[in-house]
């Protein structure tokens, strides 16, 4: 799991730091943007939290105050430091000047960092209405934005709507299963008391990415259908995997449906008296 995350992290970091193609601005006759873009390159090699990084982008914006990329690049450090006020002010400008390329990021971050479910849904749905292509994945690559949208509805208590969004996304021939798609769908089935469906999708998750959470939740589903053998077996496996670090892990925030060691231990205690 850690390995998968590291690979994704490198990919994402590379994407985030990806330099816009300044020459393209020149080619399309956007001279001011070309100049701003070139100046923004001064941030290269500097940490996104650093003074040097921020100043380079400020200089770029002084040349072209409509350069959306610079606002977005500036916003990330504020996001990661938890300064939602400055982050939002900056990312709003990026969205204002280039909604199609920034609504995905704003929507995802509202969900990931601030549990702003309504705001995230609004952004993802607005993006979907603006483009005729696939809206794509979230910033860290873990989810298709439609799956993220489904999770937002779940967090607002709309489990059935969340299930229907996920199933609709699964029906898209272009969709490939994400690292945790089946886990979240399984938990939704579990929470809506559709235990056999939950078990079926947890088994699919097992094939994709067999993490402690999956084993824990499938154990709960087996418990509900009175299959004590599989309940116990999966619970023990959840405990083992958790201790081995094979579990949900995001360095910035906690992911939805994450479990804690104490929850598994508590369930193991309960299992003794069943």
């Amino acid at each position, binding site marked *: 799991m850690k390995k998968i995350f590291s690979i994704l992290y490198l990919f994402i970091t590379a994407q985030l730091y990806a330099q816009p193609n300044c020459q393209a601005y020149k080619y399309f006759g956007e001279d001011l943007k070309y100049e701003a873009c070139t100046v923004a390159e001064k941030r290269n090699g500097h940490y996104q939290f650093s003074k040097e990084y921020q100043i380079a982008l400020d200089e770029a914006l002084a040349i072209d105050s409509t350069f959306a990329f610079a606002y977005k690049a500036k916003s990330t*450090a504020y996001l990661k430091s938890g*300064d939602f*006020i400055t982050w939002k002010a*900056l990312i709003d400008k990026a969205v204002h000047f280039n909604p199609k390329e920034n609504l995905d990021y704003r929507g995802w971050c509202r969900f990931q960092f601030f549990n702003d479910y309504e705001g995230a849904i609004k952004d993802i749905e607005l993006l979907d209405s603006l483009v005729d292509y696939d809206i794509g994945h979230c910033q860290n690559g873990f989810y298709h934005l439609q799956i993220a949208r489904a999770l937002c509805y779940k967090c607002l208590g709309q489990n059935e709507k969340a299930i229907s969004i996920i199933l609709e996304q699964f029906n898209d021939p272009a969709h490939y299963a994400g690292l945790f798609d089946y886990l979240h769908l399984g938990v939704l089935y579990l929470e809506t008391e559709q235990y056999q469906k939950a078990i079926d999708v947890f088994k699919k998750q097992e094939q994709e990415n067999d993490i402690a959470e999956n084993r824990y939740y499938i154990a709960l589903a087996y418990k509900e259908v009175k299959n004590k053998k599989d309940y116990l077996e999966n619970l023990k496996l959840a405990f083992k995997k958790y201790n081995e670090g094979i579990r949900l892990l995001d360095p*910035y925030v906690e992911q939805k449906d994450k479990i804690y060691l104490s*929850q598994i231990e508590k369930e193991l205690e309960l299992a003794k008296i069943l």
Partner: protein
Amino acid sequence: MRIFLSLSFLLFLVSCSSNENSHNYLRWVGDSAFKEQLDSTNFQLCNGDKNASQYFHFQEGMQYVGEKISLINHFFDQYKSVNVDQSGWIRIRFVVNCKGETGRFRVICSDQEYTPQVFDPKITDQLLTLTKSLKGWVIQRHDQTPKDYYQYLIFKIDNGKLIEIMP
């Protein structure tokens, strides 16, 4: 009167300062320089301000003894809802030093539209006190050396009620 005004000013600084966007950048976004009127001189960064990390640099997420659920219980067991028509987010950012001690607390607050908002002090004071009383911060190491790091907690408030804690 003078003392009252000074105290009010201090409370304003601690309880809900404005956000930190400024062209007078410090080393890094989110750094909290020592402020005599706010910070205890007893709290020291072991490796100096210039070497403080961020909690996510250690790739393990927020690290608290007993995991986040323990921290969640700390707040939900003790926070008393305040009957006010105020919703939004409150962020308390602070430093955990190489000994696991905390200091340099800074608070920002917004409404649900991310616009700065001053919450009822009964909300912010409670959260700040509860945050300062947390004792389970894990000492983070890099190459076996204990590090100082910035951590934050974001509290999602709905009509004076605490509903979620991040990260």
